[in-house]
């Protein structure tokens, strides 16, 4: 349980985060420069000018009114910055040991959790991006932190590497049960890891809630720079390896074909993510189309969003709306009005399984 009432003057706007967070994983999302990193630094005690209150599981770390401001070395926050921030003059092992105060058991545990035993005698300069992140995570874990502060730990990694490091984060969450604040731009990571999402904008809390609710509500996800408006929970129905597709039954919705994902067990829960601009809209039933997913739908509403128009469709029998984004010219050419019948087409390749 984290009680937060932080105020900090930044160059472009005041950071003012007043909220409370549960003990699990909180994803902090929001556009670049919305104060995410400053928030983490303030929590770690690295922004001496931060004012307000910070109470972590009953321990008062900051209370300006009572002149309490715990020094960073006494807060026990495991802070991992975006580029890992390893000490370049120390080996991986000495980095992990740095804050452990000689507790070899904790160091060993952290090393095993992150599977870095083979890297211990190397200097950071010779480690890859993913290896650096794992060493930095182990270093933060070895102090037995009250709270882990992770600043886009996977952002610097390419997609393949990301999927290799993500399981370690899940392991930290499930085995160490350390609460985490996790800055990310990636909806998939937020869905996979977080119990709660905090959306920041210009230093303020724009929205807060459960990941699936928050990230699929219209308008919000665009603010999260996610750009993925359609998120549907579902279950894996069948794999057609020769056909190159996996079929997913969306909860309270249609079946959707996605590019084959044989590693997902039949019946396992997945979330489908479809960008609004990846949905084709037709006014007649399309024929001879390569897209594997075509659904008849009814237009509920249209809304001008920036330079585009976001259209909200209803598919018969589906619980959640489908959002498509078109240019104003396309809307005009198709003569789209609320109540109009339409067909939505989505290529399997445009559906991401997260």
């Amino acid at each position, binding site marked *: 349980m984290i009680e937060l009432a932080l105020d900090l003057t930044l160059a472009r706007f005041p950071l003012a985060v007043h909220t409370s967070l549960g003990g699990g994983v909180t994803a902090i999302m929001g556009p670049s420069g919305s104060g995410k990193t400053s928030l983490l*630094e303030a929590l*770690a*005690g*690295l922004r001496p000018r931060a004012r307000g209150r910070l109470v972590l599981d009953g321990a008062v770390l900051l209370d300006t009114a009572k002149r309490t401001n715990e*020094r*960073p*070395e006494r*807060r*026990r*926050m*495991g*802070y991992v*910055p975006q580029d890992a*921030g390893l*000490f*370049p*003059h120390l080996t991986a092992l000495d980095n992990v040991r*740095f*804050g452990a*105060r000689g507790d070899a058991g904790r160091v060993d545990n952290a090393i095993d959790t992150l599977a870095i035993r083979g890297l211990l005698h190397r*200097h950071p*300069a010779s480690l890859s991006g993913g290896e650096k992140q794992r060493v930095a995570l182990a*270093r933060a874990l070895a*102090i037995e932190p009250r709270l882990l502060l992770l600043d886009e730990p996977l952002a610097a990694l390419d997609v393949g590497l990301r999927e290799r490091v993500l399981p370690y984060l899940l392991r930290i969450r499930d085995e160490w049960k350390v609460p985490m604040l996790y800055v990310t731009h990636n909806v998939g990571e937020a869905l996979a890891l977080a119990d709660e999402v905090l959306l920041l904008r210009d230093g303020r809390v724009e929205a807060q809630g459960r990941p699936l609710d928050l990230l699929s509500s219209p308008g919000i996800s665009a603010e999260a720079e996610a750009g993925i408006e359609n998120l549907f929970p579902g279950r894996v129905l069948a794999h057609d390896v020769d056909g190159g597709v996996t079929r997913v039954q969306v909860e309270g919705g249609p079946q959707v074909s996605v590019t084959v994902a044989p590693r997902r067990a039949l019946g396992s829960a997945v979330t489908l993510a479809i960008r609004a601009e990846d949905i084709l809209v037709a006014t007649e039933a399309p024929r001879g189309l390569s897209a594997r997913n075509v659904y008849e739908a009814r237009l509920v509403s249209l809304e001008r969003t920036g330079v585009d128009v976001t259209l909200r469709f209803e598919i018969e029998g589906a619980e959640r709306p489908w959002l498509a984004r078109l240019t104003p010219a396309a809307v005009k050419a198709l003569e789209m009005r609320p109540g109009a019948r339409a067909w939505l087409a989505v290529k399997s390749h445009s559906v991401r399984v997260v």
Partner: protein
Amino acid sequence: MLTAQEAETVLLTLKIAALGTGLILAPGIAVALMLARYRGPGKAAIETLLSLPLVLPPTAVGIVLLQTLSRRGSLGSWLAERGVEIVFTWKGVLIATMVMSFPLLVRSARTAFEEVEPRLVGIARTLGCGPLGAFFRVTLPLAWRGVLAGSVLAFARALGEFGATVMVAGNIPGKTQTLALAIFHDNQIGRDDRALVLAGVTAGLAFAALWTTEWIAGRRTRRIAA
């Protein structure tokens, strides 16, 4: 070969340079660190003031020191009451060389400290280090090369200091005569041959100091890169 008196001069010079460098190390590092981290008003003025001894004629620095430290000077009279004589003693040589080499150490160390990312120091703090612990475990190990280079420059400067020393401590063989002063003295009495020998010794000492530094720094780099 060196005469007994010349050997004594070499020894005195080395002692003064080593002791002086040792004594300015801690305050030099402290001042360099403050300058590297300080961002407030007057930063440029403070830095300029501290570098002034580098560009002033050493004799100008020497006359100010002499006025301050002589028995009639403010500090000198206070010291004299406590039985401490500075002027025309080896302590005068020591103080003159310390004042002249201090800015060299500070400049070099400051640049090195500025290159240490403050973020790494912050991370060290979150890992349980106090400010002093973070300095000794992160800042200094990352900046030690610049600090070492500055110390060697300061040491070399102390070996060759002439102007301020001659003003404060005179040129008394066996007492305040360092190599630089002895070379001048030999020339004055027409012994250019001895002056040249001493110049060679000075050059040898300075070369050894600088080369050792390069060697240590180079070896250390290779180890980290490997």
